[in-house]
């Protein structure tokens, strides 16, 4: 099976006047359909830069990047934008929802910039469908300020899904969430992955990474470890454990 993502010796050098920062130094990797990978590393390890490159938000200085068979290294600003729109879904640490905009309209957003002209009714149906996937169809008319952190992140996931992307990219998706909510959000990712969606997630927490199938560890711009996760965590089990602990705490309290 052809790889969805294929990186060949990717380098990224930032030129900020006098100093040159070599953020990514020769990363090669392949990502197949249905994978669920965590990119880990300390700050400054180059994981965010790699993520921006994967997300077509930034072009590599050197190297080749094939996304779904298309070489993106040479595309211009607008072509990259179209690629992000059609093939990628983004989930951010800070949710990045438009304020004073309903959950539904937030989810509709990527479709407004899509290649096809979509009628208002279709927009609404598709957005509601995606909100349903993340279990929030009853909150479609709520504003982000009326939603909890976990709910906001689920709206963001619905937004990422709305154009049926090849890859879902999540940058520290649980960074702003408490542990129980984090597990719930990871559960959503898990379900999506089971349905065949390829997911790449950046995190610096080891126990978050253990919900993924594959862990990529970076240091100083290089991949130092790329392993399959031996004993994965599963969100459902973990939530059950957390509930049990809560009950136990109540009993003893």
């Amino acid at each position, binding site marked *: 099976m052809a790889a969805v993502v294929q990186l060949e010796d990717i380098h990224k050098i930032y030129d900020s006047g006098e100093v040159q920062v070599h953020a990514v130094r020769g990363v090669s990797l392949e990502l197949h359909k249905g994978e669920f990978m965590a990119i880990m590393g300390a700050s400054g390890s180059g994981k965010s830069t790699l993520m*921006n490159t994967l*997300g077509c*938000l*930034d072009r590599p200085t050197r190297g080749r990047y094939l996304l779904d068979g298309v070489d993106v290294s040479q595309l211009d*600003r*607008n072509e990259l*934008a*179209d690629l*992000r*729109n*059609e093939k990628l879904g*983004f989930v*951010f640490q800070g949710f*990045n*929802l*438009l304020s*004073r*905009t309903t959950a539904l*309209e937030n989810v509709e*957003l*990527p479709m*407004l*910039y*899509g290649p096809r*002209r979509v009628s208002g009714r279709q927009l609404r149906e598709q957005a509601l469908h995606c909100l349903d996937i993340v279990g929030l169809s009853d909150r479609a008319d709520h504003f982000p300020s009326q939603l909890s952190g976990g709910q906001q992140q689920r709206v963001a996931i619905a*937004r990422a899904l709305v*154009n049926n992307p090849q890859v879902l990219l999540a940058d520290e998706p649980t960074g702003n969430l408490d542990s129980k909510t984090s597990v719930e959000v990871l559960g959503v990712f898990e379900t999506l992955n089971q349905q065949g969606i390829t997911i790449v997630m950046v995190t610096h927490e080891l126990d978050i990474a253990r919900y993924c199938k594959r862990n990529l560890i970076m240091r100083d711009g290089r991949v130092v470890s790329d392993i399959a996760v031996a004993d994965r965590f599963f969100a459902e089990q973990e939530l059950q454990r957390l509930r049990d602990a809560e009950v136990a705490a109540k009993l003893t309290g």
Partner: protein
Amino acid sequence: MRIGSTLTVSFRALRRNAMRSTLTALGIIIGVGAVIAMVSIGNGAKSMVEAQIAALGENVLLVFSGSISQGGARSGSFGAGTLTVEDADAIQREVTTVIAVSPEVRMGAQVLANGLNWSTQILGEGPDYLSIRMWPLSDGNMFTDSDIRSVGKVCIVGQTIVTQLFPDGAPIGQTLRIRNQPFKVVGVLAAKGLSVQGADQDDLVIVPYTSAMKRVARQTMLRSINVQAASAEAIAVAQADIIALLRQRHRTTEQTDDFTVRNQEEIAQAATATSKTMTLLLGAIAGVSLLVGGIGIMNIMLVSVTERTREIGIRLAVGAHGREIQLQFLTEAVVLSAFGGSLGILLGIGASELLSQINHWPTLVSPLAVVVAFLFSAAVGVVFGFYPARKASLLDPIEALRYE
């Protein structure tokens, strides 16, 4: 480019910030409103002046008595008077392009009737005065040449005199006393209303000029002579002929002329020039406020671009092109200013209506001003929206997403 979607996006963004949108548009609302109201007032004044000029009569020339010098002291215009009844007769007789002449004297006097009294203006005129001024009578008849010759004690009264001195409303045949001289009322003038300056044009009594000179004012000189030329084309010739005739009779030259001849066109030009200047001035002031409104829009749009940097980042991340971001912000600016322009038009029309109701100022909403003001406000949106929109479109998505 997906224009339909971009419009949707723009309208959603404006609706989200309804309060700010309205406040931003306020500058344009007031600017356009001011332009329309000011131009309406100016136009109203102009049309009123024009009506006034037309009311002067058709093809009218006015000969004014100039100043005379007596022992070094010069009297002002109309001072002691330099025009005589003979001058008027000479004009009638010798200038062939003239069809009617009415010598004129004027004075203020207290008039009495029915035990009531009223201070008013007395005009001494010839029998052709009303036809020259195109001023119809509502009742009775104008006095005749025989009244002039016999220094007749007859008079024509304006509507205000009827209201003030003849409570029964039927003054014809009744007697009016001017400086203790009884005059019989033979005609009533049709109402004329207020002049541009706000003077009551119906507050007057017209008597034969001979009677005015001998019985009331006891003066021998005329204040002015009303002359009617045969046609519009004849005005210039008549004017030149009258000047030549009077110079010959008064033994004056251009430098020492003791009279002035004005034709209707000159009077009209002077009057409309004033109101034109006023319209222009008011329009210019209002235009400045429109410009300030435009700068206000640019200001808010610039702040808005900075404030919404993260929003722009999100849009770019999910696939918006730079041009679509630009179009969105440009559309927001244009919609704001066009919306402001429309409200401003309503405000301007409302304000000019209100002004004419309250102050009894004549106003005339100019359709041209409405169209120009609207187009100008839309153009303001494009011009002042362009820079912020361009700025937004050039943002880097990664930087914009990181923006706090």
